[in-house]
């Protein structure tokens, strides 16, 4: 559950976005820009967290009144070397924050920190990651919390989709691109696994709200509605008209242990009662138009 240190939203003095060039970081940057928030956007070009002396360069850029949005990650983490890379990046940020206290920190984490059998998942669900990706985020959450005296908020998105997604992972992003190319939209097996899909714009809005409220704690960036990959595929197909088809292909491996994942979004409703998450159909249309 989030605790708001600002009961009413207050525009942060400045937000330093670490990882502003990525899919999520870019969306947060645009959201802050449109809200009139002063932003110091750090992409890998301005700050490569894996380079020597990165922590010192970051520390020089930070002001005590800054809010920091830490988004940067090499993801998804699939190997141990990738895990260690991400931890070194986290270590650099921790070192900078330890030397230069800031006002507030928001870390963009992942729902992969939760145990597979947490169902429905809430912010109070146990963190027991079953993947290297989840372990990376869980470790960085702890690292960052221990490195700073500033209030820290974790935003834990589930599967994110949006026009600019670079990963092309199984789900809305790949389905849309397949439809755009005129290829069949392919689902594994029956595509019956139900997942929650969140629009990247909503993740960015939640980050903005957390920054404005100077929140601390954890919040899941999820819609509370889980949809099967089959239904997502057909929703995308309908968007692209008669030519779009859905085809089943054999699974690349056994059916996933985690068949369905549901989220209870009550904490989000309480934290930001006026915020409305984008439904999947509407979000897919936004992504299709590339808005």
């Amino acid at each position, binding site marked *: 559950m989030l605790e708001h240190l600002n009961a009413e939203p207050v525009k942060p003095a400045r937000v330093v976005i670490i990882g502003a060039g990525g899919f999520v970081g870019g969306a947060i940057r645009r959201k802050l820009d449109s809200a009139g928030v002063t932003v110091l956007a750090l992409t890998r070009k301005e700050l490569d967290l894996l380079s020597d002396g990165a922590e010192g360069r970051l520390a020089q850029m930070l002001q005590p009144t800054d809010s920091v949005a830490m988004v940067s990650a090499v993801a998804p983490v699939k190997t141990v070397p990738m895990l260690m890379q991400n931890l070194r990046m986290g270590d650099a940020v921790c070192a900078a924050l330890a030397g230069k206290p800031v006002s507030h920190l928001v870390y963009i984490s992942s729902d992969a920190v939760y145990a597979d059998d947490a169902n429905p998942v809430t912010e*109070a669900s146990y963190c027991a990651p079953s993947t290297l990706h989840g372990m990376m985020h869980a470790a960085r959450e702890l690292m960052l919390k221990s490195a700073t005296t500033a209030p820290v908020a974790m935003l834990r998105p589930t599967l994110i989709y949006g026009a600019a997604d670079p990963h092309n992972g199984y789900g809305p992003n790949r389905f849309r691109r397949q439809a755009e190319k005129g290829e069949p939209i392919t689902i594994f097996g029956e595509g019956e696994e139900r997942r929650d899909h969140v629009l990247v714009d909503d993740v960015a809005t939640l980050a903005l709200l957390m920054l404005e409220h100077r929140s601390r704690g954890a919040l899941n960036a999820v819609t509370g509605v889980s949809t099967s990959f089959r239904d997502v595929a057909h929703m995308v197909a309908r968007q692209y008209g008669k030519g779009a088809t859905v085809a089943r292909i054999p699974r690349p491996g056994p059916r996933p242990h985690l068949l369905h994942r549901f989220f*209870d*979004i*009550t904490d989000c*409703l*309480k934290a930001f*009662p*006026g915020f*409305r998450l984008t439904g999947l159909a509407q979000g897919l249309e936004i992504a299709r138009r590339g808005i």
Partner: protein
Amino acid sequence: MSAPVIGFAGMTHLGINSAAACAARGFRTLCYDPDGRVIDGLAAGSVPVVEPGLPELLYKNAGRIRFSAQARDLAACDVIYIAPDVPTDEHGGSDLSGIEALIAAVAAQLGAQAVLVVLCQVPPGFTRRLLLPAERLFYQVETLVFGRAVERALQPERIIVGCADPARELPAAYREFLEVFGCPVLPMRYESAELAKIAINCCLVASVTVANTLAELSEGIGADWSEIAPALKLDRRIGQHAYLAPGLGLAGGNLERDLATVLRLSGETGADVALVRAFVHNSHHRRDWALRTLHAEVFSVSSDPVIGVLGLAYKEDTHSTKNSPALALIRHLAPWRIRIHDPVVPAEAARHPRTIACGSALETAAGADALVIMTPWAQFRELKAREVAHALRGHTVIDPYRVLNGAAIAAAGLDYFTLGAAPLRGTRQGEPHA
């Protein structure tokens, strides 16, 4: 030998009801509280708690009841009950400082042969730690139920007595008083009795949690829990009086206190109490059912909705709002206007910045986008579906406890949401069938 005189120290819900039942059973009864204002009010016929039948019982037996704010008056009692309600914090933790002070004050007046009985809710180990003569010190389990306190005080199904030595016979005066209730008296060790109280509540919570869990499943698969629960009650292993009505989590404070005690004892002993954690988790989850329904049905489509809330008390027939689901809901309705009515609790108790206090249930519905019935007061059953439909601006009725007839509400063109069954969608002109 004349009948013993029974004293009750601490005039809150438990003490007043217990004293009234004692007098009704024919005993001279002394009601003591150190707060003179409380005593003056009671002596003048003003009962500070809402409990059906209690004012009448006190009035009818007034000749046997004496009220006093003087501790020395307790010296004339043969049996003295320590009977105030023990306050709890938001986590269910008990504040025992008040009863410890009361026990000290009462013990100083205890006659040479008199018996002291701790009746209020104390954690295991409390009674044995008291520095009082063990052969005259007892703990008695209270099973007060808000809204049914008089009935339960007059006709307990059994009396559990915690003793220093359960093999020893109870003192004559205490035994004479207990036997008049005509139910089994079960002496046992202090700790067993203290845990028995918690065990009773854990069993109740288990039933409620089963009902809540399967009611939620019912909502998702097209079953109706109200059809299932009667079948369970006919099973002798479950029983007619089982708590199988789904609700909005635990409220009132007593059940929550006992779960918190179990969790604390687990921390001290290492016992596995994952089950009890699950009870607490489910309670929190179901408490927010109405909030989730409002967001899904109203807040997601209306920019400045008005919500009518019927009921603030944590249950019907009481003034108590301890852990009230209504107040828990209202805390998260801050951005919106709400109209409130409760037959007993004033609207100010909601502490909401945009509250309109209403004089009746139907007035509460007037111009609202949704009507939410958070306490199943009998008065609310008098609402007519067509009148509600006419009064509401919107078309959402959220009725967790099935106060209204859902089919009639849907027939009036409203959408009806309750615990344990799928929503009933009303058909409205110009809208497609749901």
